[in-house]
């Protein structure tokens, strides 16, 4: 991996400055079954294509954000702040 990624605050920076936390997951609501829980904790879609991922500008401003990345080409189509941060 050696592409550039645009932090919503700092702009395009080498990917080495970031930590990737993997594709977004849907946390189950109240008391999932063991199967649902296992799906959520251990299984990922691992798509060959565009997926939405969590990234943190760890060696930079420290912000967590979301990125739509094509896993085949490492092309980043869009970066965005999570919903929780948009209002503030």
């Amino acid at each position, binding site marked *: *991996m*050696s*592409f*550039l990624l645009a932090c919503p605050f700092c702009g395009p920076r*080498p*990917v080495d400055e970031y*930590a990737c*936390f993997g594709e977004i997951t849907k*946390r*189950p609501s*109240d*008391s*999932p079954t*063991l199967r649902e*829980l296992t799906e*959520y*904790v*251990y299984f990922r879609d691992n798509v060959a294509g565009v997926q939405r991922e*969590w990234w*943190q500008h*760890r060696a930079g401003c*420290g912000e*967590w*954000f979301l990125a739509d990345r094509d896993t085949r080409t*490492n092309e980043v189509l869009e970066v965005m702040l*999570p*919903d*929780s*941060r948009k*209002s*503030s």
Partner: protein
Amino acid sequence: MRLERRDGERIDRSRAVSFTFAGWKITGFEGDTIASAAFAAGKRVFSRSFKYHRPRGLLCCSGHCPNCQMTVDGVPNVRVCTEPVREGAVVEGQNVRWSLDFDFMSLTDKVGGPFTPVGFYYRTFIRPRAAWPLYEKFLRSAAGLGALDPHAGHTRRYDTEHRRARVLVVGGGAAGRAAALDAAKAGPGVVLVDEDARNRDLELPGVEVLAPARALGIWEGGLVPVDADTVLYRFRAERIVVATGATEQPLVFPGNDLVGVMLPEGVRRLLRDYSIRPGERAIVVGSDDETLAIADELVDVGVEIAKVVDLRDVRPRELAAQGRKGRVRRLVLDGESYGCDLLVASGGWQPAYSLLAQAGARVEFDDSLGVFVPTELPDGVEAVGSVTGEGLSRIASEPAYQGKGKCFVCVCEDVTTKDMKRAIGEGFDSIELAKRYTTATMGPCQGKLCHLSSIRVYAEETRMFESAIGTTTARPPWAPVELGLLAGRDLTPTRRGSIHWRHEEAGATIQWAGPWMRPYAYGEHPEDEVRAVHESLGVIDVSTLGKLLVEGPEAVQLLERLYPNRFGDMKPGRIRYGVLTSDGGRIMDDGTIARLAEDLFYVTTTSTGADAVTAWFEWWNAVWGYDAEIVNVTGALAAVNLAGPRAREALGRLVEDPDDVSAEDFKYLDAHELEVAGVPTLALRIGFVGELGYELHFASPAGEHLWDALVAEGAVPFGLEPQRVLRLEKGHVIVGQDTDSESNLYSAGMSWLPKLDKDDFVGKFALEHFAQREEKELLVGFTMEEDVVPAEGAQIVVEGMPVGRVTSARRSDAVGRVIGLAWVPTDRSEPGTRVEIQVDRLRRGARITQGPFFDPAGERMRS
């Protein structure tokens, strides 16, 4: 044979430079390369070939071929044809038994030929299997390049630098310079890199020139790493212009590797740059005007031209070089013999398209030129000059000429036309497979001089068109690179707390603890430090603990959702132990949480967990969006733990009012702000080591001052090892040592901790499931029956079967036994159960215990 002074020469005849070359003292001039100085002094053999140990001399003089690789001042595989002379340098031959001029291993060339065909080692050295290490040792010493000195250590320092450019031009030839100047008209940010040291002083207005520097490849996202000796530039450019030109190809004919067979460019450099007459009697063979023109240049400096062969006019059936002692003596052309000591032969020019292919360009065979050219360039990448095929002459030579002797396709790996044919005969019917089997193009030149030849020979043998065969994949790096340069400088900082030098002064044994340097113990006897804590007073530097401030109107909601514990009911000034779990219910980290005010919490983490916990907190808060801020203050604050029966009394003397630390006003698990020895301090009454204790957190710069004040009060410094004994006596778990990525709160014996009636928290769903099932194994304590200490990781054995493992074990004077923690199957976890533990080679008895080994009611730490 140095000539009279000539116009354009690059040597400074007024400045002599001396060095030793294979034991000989050689004097050249400033501006010489090691190879040119040695050649001028009459040296002709520079290396021995990879497999047959044939003598090899200068071929390309351009830093491409393997022929002049030598060890210079201990650095192996240096191409001395581009390495400037250095006063006092020691240059030695490599892959040689005895000397460059007489190599014992060259017997493989004379007698080994029929026995060492392509791939012979795959087939020959199979049985017996037991001899594999022996074969390996022999083959490694018999074949190969320079040897590294494994004990050499770091001799050079390498750095990595990230660079941006608007336009990056690779290659400083005419086309590259023109492109750079053109780009510079539009503004700044133009960089040109060129591998040729002769361009060191090149100046182009508005262009930054890096030379000698070599673009190693074009990686994903347009990353271009540039090797500038001890600096690796990682370039990113809006536009990359590739002007890498074309590489002159050797002609393939028997004897084409003899010393004295050279490429025209090599001859031209010796002549023009270093004013050396490269031979006495020369023959020129080629198929383009530029090559043939060299004959006139040679005549000008007094070289006799024995023959000029224009391969466009003649199509010889036989063309072979013959020599004596590895040096060329004559050219045999259709039965006629011509004497010479220099044979200038060119097979034409092949575009150096590797970088373009790496960037995603397609490579096609151009039938009109007879070479491979790049097409369909990706966005942001351009090609200019001869790398596109522009200006090149059609290749008129045969793929290979017939005659007597070994005919080399690949000089790096000693692959002959016979080897290629044999590989095809054995069924390696794709060029990629034939490449791997013969290893042609896989040597140090990375195919620069043999890629085209090997495909042409392959095409001729299989009667296929080059266009149908295609080409092998071009991979980075484009040229050999020192591993040290890729590794760069180690930029992981060593962390030391602000009190660190006091520990050094006290003679502590310092050890690594994650990224930190910490005292193991202060003397030879850690047990003395343990006793001091139990009997009077000790102090340990715990500045390495992770420390976070969590503040905001919703700080308490955030922590309630991060931890399985409850915090909402905590009063300001109180402390709670907390364990972080993942959503899979596994233990991640532990520490203490002090509520300093309604909306302000002070969280400590393990020493190695600070960064991960900070990121974890921030991530969940990005998900949930609570109105709370997280600040990592690990480095800003120092911390010490003052522990022992005398702790209250000692601390009382350092604060304004001793009543501030009285048993009534400062209870166990209280957090108070105190001024200790004049330092504003957050004091936490906690008991990791099991005695009355205060953990003092304060600004780092006051570290030594406070430490000195505590030591002056009689506190005995204790290190990590005594602390491990003390906490083990209490049965306190160290996350990451006693737990692993599978451990959960129930299996680790902390079922009291999670509050499952709480609203959602991270790990709740998993813990709900764990609460209803029986764990397969549990973390328990044990005492040894005998006075032996099992190793961490020692097996627990029941009925001869390994069923569990020891995670911690120490000898405790306070308990009077060897104690420890271990994972055992649930049905063996009853207190009193006897198990056996493997200690060295013997099984020793142990009894399972429950709870702390020392002061089980915790009266001492609560006192």
